[in-house]
């Protein structure tokens, strides 16, 4: 793939994620041991595995929410210098999980504007995201009135409106219909083409060229 290695996305130059010898457990149960993975600019990795294999936990570990039992997750910047992981996560990482983080009584506009402002989105990118995901008719609704697919579109818009290099996606396409799956695929492809990275937990194949990493089943 033809990638500009030097392009910066968002507030920080984040061009690589290195997972080395990672072991994770939840409670008493060991999810996986000795997992290594390197993700560099323009690459996508699709995590597969049975329910409970640790896909979501791995994403949350990369986001910094779960402390690994052993091993390390490091972030690399320009010329592969190591970045401070807190700064990398603060400016370089999007997490799109099962939960969309929307307050039921606030309007979609209020929530979208808060999320993008908070994550460092800018005005023009925000307008573009609203147009791309056709959010205009939804913005004045309270978020409790949105369907699961509409909520997911709002979250995808957040990824576009506040550019960050690493997208951690947990079943990103699950609630979307055909039309919006195609749009999501285009957004992912554009993100990769501009030098972004995607680490996604999926059951269906990712709609962009991706390496597969199987976490296996329940041991």
């Amino acid at each position, binding site marked *: 793939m033809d990638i500009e290695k030097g392009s910066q996305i968002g507030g920080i130059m984040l061009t690589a994620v290195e997972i080395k010898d990672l072991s994770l457990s939840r409670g008493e149960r060991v999810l996986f041991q000795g997992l290594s993975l390197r993700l560099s600019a323009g690459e996508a990795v699709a995590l597969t595995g049975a329910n409970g294999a640790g896909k979501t936990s791995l994403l949350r570990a990369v986001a910094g*929410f779960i402390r690994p039992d052993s091993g390390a997750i490091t972030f690399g910047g320009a010329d592969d210098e190591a970045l401070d992981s807190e700064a990398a996560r603060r400016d370089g*990482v999007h*997490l799109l*999980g099962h*939960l*969309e983080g929307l*307050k039921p009584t*606030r309007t979609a506009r209020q929530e979208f504007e808060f*999320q993008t402002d908070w994550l460092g989105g800018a005005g023009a990118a925000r307008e573009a995201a609203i147009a791309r995901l056709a959010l205009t008719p939804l913005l004045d609704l309270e978020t409790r009135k949105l369907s699961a697919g509409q909520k997911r579109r709002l979250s995808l818009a957040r990824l576009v409106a506040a550019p960050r290099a690493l997208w951690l996606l947990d079943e990103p396409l699950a609630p979307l219909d055909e039309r919006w799956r195609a749009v999501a695929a285009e957004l992912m492809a554009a993100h990769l083409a501009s030098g972004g990275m995607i680490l996604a937990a999926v059951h269906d194949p990712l709609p962009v060229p991706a390496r597969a990493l199987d976490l296996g089943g329940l041991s």
Partner: protein
Amino acid sequence: MRAVRVLFGRELSLAWGGGGGPLLACGFMLCLTAILPLAAGGDPRVLAPAASGASWMALALASLLSLERLFERDLEDGALDLLALGPLPLEATVAIKALAQWLATGLPLALTAPVAALALGQPVHLIGLTALAAAIGGLGFAFTGALGAALALGARRGGLLIAVVVLPLFIPPVVFGAGALTRAANAQDPLSALALLAAYVLFAIVIAPVAGAAAIRNAQG
């Protein structure tokens, strides 16, 4: 800074939107105040000496009401992940949330406190001091309350747990705040008690964000 303003605005909007939380807390405080004369008899000679203390107890209990909203909802709907990936360290996020809690709930309660105290027979000239002490104490309630709310995260139905964790932490400000009013009512200088109250509040402002952020990280993992 932009991020501070953005988060502060969201917290205020959440506190005021959807159910008018602060008004609820003020109403709750007045209800508690109204129950005391019914329980202890309406004799002003009984009520007046207890007015300061009773109004502070009502203030402490009313300050508990919206604490569950502070972090629990954000944890349940995933917004806490978003907050953690934002531009501010979690400690600052906790501090901003506590400050917004004070502004949205603490200050309206501080304005209600003189009404409650007056209704129970507190001398009229203590109105200003009552509101001032309640405003300072409310800041302490907001920060210790935020700490308790963070500690109770992850325990299902954490609301009651918050009350049990937080109420012991509310005792010092209640002692100092009600003490200041009692001293003033007895024509003594209330400044020493107010200073102790302010010292406790400063202590809470320093400790709560750090400890609260640690508790949140633990609940997120």
